[in-house]
């Protein structure tokens, strides 16, 4: 399989080197490979997400960047310098733990000041000024004397952010940063994290299994599965042009039709020859998946109602599900497989459950995937 990772940028000098460069990084626990052959660059000051299902190796990958785990293969470079063998406390990066890991025996101010006190890099007066600034950054002015137990979940996270950023690391790693928050607070913190990142100009790397989180916050996303990075791209590119069937399935929802390619047609067993997007560059006879997003599918009663050039497949409407901002239609195609269509807003199709319908789409809005 050709790993669709990006080519390294220009030759790294100390100033232009990427924040993180992973080259052939792998980690094996006993006999179990957790991370395999990961090569990617994280640019300075970008908001980068590592996205994948649980157990895909994303946490291990992050822990190798922090230094809590040592790679069994490959090199980790931070700011152009090989970091293999550098212990975590000597790396110019901080981590935001999923549990926040605030010290319960210290108050808010002491938690935030922790790094500066340990590193003894500044006089006392400056430390308390820095604490005030850090608390202001996360909008917790005047909370310095509070005990950790007095804080809500959202406030704890803000304290953890202030604590991690006070030493102005060049890199902040965030482990499932929004996982423990409720829905409303999540949306708020997504925007807030992005704002803080722009304000402090620090490279943020989040690890998450939540695609919405990754799509809304990130400049670029790496999709991981089975210990490998499948695609590194901008959120739009990942959604519009997924590189593999896994990515198309994991990000958003996709319908898949599997068949064999012949020119501009895809032969699908018992469904016929379907038009595919032009210029795909794949050889005839290749076994491929055709991915179609539900929002690109339109339903009609008659085949003839579909506009010219659209692919049309007959099926039966099984269920209409109202989602609030959209309506989802579940169909069964003639070969018995499931197919999903989606329209914005409430159902205005006038279709009834159990009715025969045609699912139609523009072949240019579908995507061929050979893996």
């Amino acid at each position: 399989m050709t790993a669709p990772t990006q080519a390294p940028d220009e030759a790294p000098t100390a100033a232009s080197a990427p924040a993180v460069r992973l080259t052939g990084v792998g980690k094996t626990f006993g006999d179990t490979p957790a991370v395999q052959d990961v090569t990617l660059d994280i640019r300075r000051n970008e908001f980068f997400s590592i996205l994948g299902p649980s157990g895909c190796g994303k946490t291990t990958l992050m822990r190798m960047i922090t230094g809590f785990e040592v790679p069994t293969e490959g090199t980790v470079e931070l700011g152009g310098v090989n970091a293999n063998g550098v212990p975590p406390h000597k790396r110019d990066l901080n981590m935001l733990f999923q549990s926040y890991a605030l010290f319960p025996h210290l108050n808010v101010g002491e938690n935030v000041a922790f790094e500066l006190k340990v590193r003894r890099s500044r006089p006392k007066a400056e430390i308390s000024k820095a604490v005030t600034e850090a608390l202001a950054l996360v909008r917790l002015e005047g909370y310095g004397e509070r005990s950790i137990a007095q804080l809500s979940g959202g406030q704890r996270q803000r304290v953890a952010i202030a604590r991690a950023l006070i030493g102005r690391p060049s890199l902040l790693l965030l482990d499932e940063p929004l996982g423990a928050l409720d829905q409303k607070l999540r949306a708020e913190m997504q925007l807030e994290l992005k704002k803080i990142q722009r304000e402090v100009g620090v490279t943020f790397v989040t690890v998450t299994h939540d695609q919405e989180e990754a799509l809304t916050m990130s400049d670029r996303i790496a999709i991981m599965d089975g210990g490998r990075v499948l695609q590194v791209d901008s959120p739009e590119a990942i959604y519009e042009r997924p590189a593999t069937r896994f990515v198309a399935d994991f990000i958003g929802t996709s319908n898949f039709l599997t068949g064999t390619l012949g020119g501009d047609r895809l032969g699908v067993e018992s469904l016929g020859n379907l038009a595919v997007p032009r210029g795909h560059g794949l050889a005839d006879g290749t076994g491929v998946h055709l991915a179609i997003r539900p929002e690109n599918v339109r339903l009609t009663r008659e085949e003839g109602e579909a506009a010219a050039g659209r692919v049309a497949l007959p099926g039966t409407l099984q269920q209409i599900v109202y989602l609030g901002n959209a309506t989802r239609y579940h169909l069964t195609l003639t070969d018995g497989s499931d197919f999903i269509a989606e329209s914005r807003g409430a159902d205005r199709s006038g279709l009834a459950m159990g009715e025969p319908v045609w699912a139609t789409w523009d072949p240019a809005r579908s995507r061929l995937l050979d893996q």
Partner: protein
Amino acid sequence: MKHALDTVTAWLARGVIAFLYIPIIVVVVLSFNDSEITYKWDGFSTRWYGKLADNTELLAALQVSAEVALISATLATACGLLAAMGMARLRGKGKAIFSGGLFLPLIIPEIVLGVALLSVFGAMSADLGMTTLVLGHLVVTLPYAALIVLGAYNALDSSLPEAATDLGCNAWQAFRRVTLPLLRQPLLAAWLLCFTISFGNIVMSTFTNGVGSTTLPLRVYSMLKGGLTPEINALGTLLVLFTLLIILGVGLRQMRRVLVGADRS
């Protein structure tokens, strides 16, 4: 019917509490009894406290007990902490063997441990004294200390020391600034328990004490032969007072947290 049962259990509970505390109250009252015969009240007197102050044998034994308890409780707590930290790194079989070995002395009768230890000291031709006494008490107290500290250590969020490392601490700084302060209460609980166990120990002391290192319980026990004098009551009263002072000193609230914490782990 249910009401009657409630009454019975309520009185039963009162009875149990009374049974626990009546002896202590009796000791305190009798220590102020003028009579030579402990169970006959002859009027108020503080003369037994005066006699206690003159009883150098008893006071020497008290000193030995205090010293042994202090040293062995401190050693046991320190070893318990080290054992907990070491075991956190072990996996599978090694962990099972180590924890089995650590807690086995809990179920071996103390008299067997005493005899065995005496044989070992004999084979080494070691002189019995403070050192052997402390080692013997360490054998008895260590499993308790390890049990309490291990539970608390395992309950500690492992990301806390990691966070300390992430924020610039080396291993020692992470231990001193985060792990140790968070374990303060269980460590205190373990130390107090070990101190009490060592202070009241008779069996192990019988085997491991030497000339000039007779502990208080041994001294009191040997006095039974010549008949108990009310000085013992005076000493008992002072010890109760001392314990109360400790509890007040540590703080009742803290004490409850220690006990609840030890319970949860």
